């Protein structure tokens, strides 16, 4: 019997059945942005349309909430989130964080529920007849796993099994013919970084060592670029793009699009007036080059390699002992990431799988 695999990601969510990613109803994409917007007319939007509303209705458009799912309001992670994201977070009576929106207080678990709901509708998957596996970062704590399972249950997925993302990635690469014995999973997603040494010698991948940095991902690259944009504009025009959270969120959003464009282009640009119509030089184009992106990524990459060092130590291995590196996560599209990983391990990367789909595909192929 086929299994449904779901990668409930910080930035995008993907479903797969029997080793194939499920296209959405637009027929073009397989990735549903994990963004939920609450409109003034009471309606809810999820996905691409919601993502577009970030620019015009920031405080009612929720994103990246996986970063704090299953975390208490007084935790370090939630404090960090409040400092970095232009969303209004409050402490709910039960001590959990909730977003203040025009639809009332919305918990991160509810955001995940809405995303899963939309995914089921838009891919046409039928979870009532099929077993479902939802993936989680390997280092997700008990409460984080519980909150994820709760979101899945509320979305009508019934009884789901949870699977660690690196294991799912290994399942996918093994199914696509990788003959690796000792593989390393390098999964740089939108909001979390997972890395693991996986033994692939038996029929099922087995985690030998792993770690996650739940505060490292593509979002951080966007923040770095946005910080650079803010600093440049402040220095040149004495104008602070971070004075209004809504404006800064638009800067973040434009930086994310520029980053995506730079995975294939040498430069990307946007007009300052597109993020702040009040800016004194709204028709000034802001250019972001691939070289600048590489510089901004360097320290983040270094952080990821420190985590790789730790995992290899745990497994009593060295980089040269790894025969293949399995890449996953949207940020793996970036050339600077691929080059950095290749040079860190001194081995070629397993290619041929879409980094944004591989986790869901693996989850759909995993056997109990």
């Amino acid at each position, binding site marked *: 019997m086929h299994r449904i695999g779901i990668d409930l990601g910080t930035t995008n969510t993907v479903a797969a059945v029997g080793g194939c990613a499920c296209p959405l109803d637009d027929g073009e994409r397989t990735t549903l942005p994990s963004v939920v917007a609450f409109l003034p007319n009471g309606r809810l939007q999820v996905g691409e349309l919601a993502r577009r509303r970030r620019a*015009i209705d920031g405080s009612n458009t929720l994103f990246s909430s996986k970063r704090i799912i299953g975390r208490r309001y007084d935790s370090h992670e939630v404090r960090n989130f409040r400092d970095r994201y232009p969303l209004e977070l409050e402490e709910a009576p039960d001590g959990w964080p909730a977003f203040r929106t025009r639809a009332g207080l919305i918990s991160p678990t509810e955001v995940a529920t809405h995303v899963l709901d939309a995914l089921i509708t838009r891919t046409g998957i039928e979870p009532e007849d099929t077993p479902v596996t939802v993936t989680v970062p390997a280092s997700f704590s008990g409460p984080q796993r519980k909150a994820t399972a709760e979101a899945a249950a509320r979305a009508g997925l019934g009884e789901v099994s949870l699977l660690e993302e690196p294991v799912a990635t290994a399942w996918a690469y093994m199914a696509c013919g990788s003959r690796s014995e000792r593989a390393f999973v390098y999964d740089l997603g939108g909001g979390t970084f997972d890395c693991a040494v996986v033994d692939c010698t038996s029929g099922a991948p087995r985690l030998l060592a792993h770690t996650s940095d739940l505060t490292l991902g593509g979002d951080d690259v966007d923040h770095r670029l946005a910080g650079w944009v803010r600093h440049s504009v402040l220095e040149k025009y004495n104008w602070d793009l971070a004075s209004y959270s*809504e404006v800064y969120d638009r800067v973040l959003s434009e930086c994310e699009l520029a980053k995506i*464009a730079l995975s*294939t*282009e040498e430069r990307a640009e946007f007009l300052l007036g597109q993020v702040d119509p009040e800016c004194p030089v709204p*028709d000034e184009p802001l250019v972001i080059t691939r070289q600048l992106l590489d510089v901004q990524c360097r320290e983040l990459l270094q952080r990821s390699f420190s985590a790789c060092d730790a995992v290899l130590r745990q497994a009593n291995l060295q980089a040269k002992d790894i025969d293949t590196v399995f890449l996953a996560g949207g940020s793996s599209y970036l050339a600077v990431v691929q080059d950095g990983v290749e040079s860190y391990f001194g081995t070629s990367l397993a290619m041929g799988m879409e980094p944004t789909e591989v986790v869901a595909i693996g989850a759909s192929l995993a056997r109990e």
Partner: protein
Amino acid sequence: MDSEVLPTRTDLQLLTRVRFRDATGEDRECFGNLLELGPRLARLESGRTLEAGCHIVLQVVFPGQRHYPRSHVALNYIVRDSHDEANLLYDLETTVLEKESHERLALYLRRENATPCARSEAR
């Protein structure tokens, strides 16, 4: 403006400030995305709900027009109808266009690549 020769730009995402008067007579403001723009008609994704018949002023910045002393262009429209009420998408029709706004809108519509930023490549 000769509407015969000016194209309608689609697949845009042009941030605009929207000024309007609501049903209670109160002056309101929100942000919107211009998704389509032509010589007479436009399609707007609005941050707030708009009523059919409502007069609105859009303040936009067109790329490639740095030679004008003012960066912003004010465009006057009437909300003709909702294109998709559930998603707050509205069809607009121009009312009064002053000479400079007229000229700058035409310039923008004639530009070969009207997309102002990295978005076209990103999709």
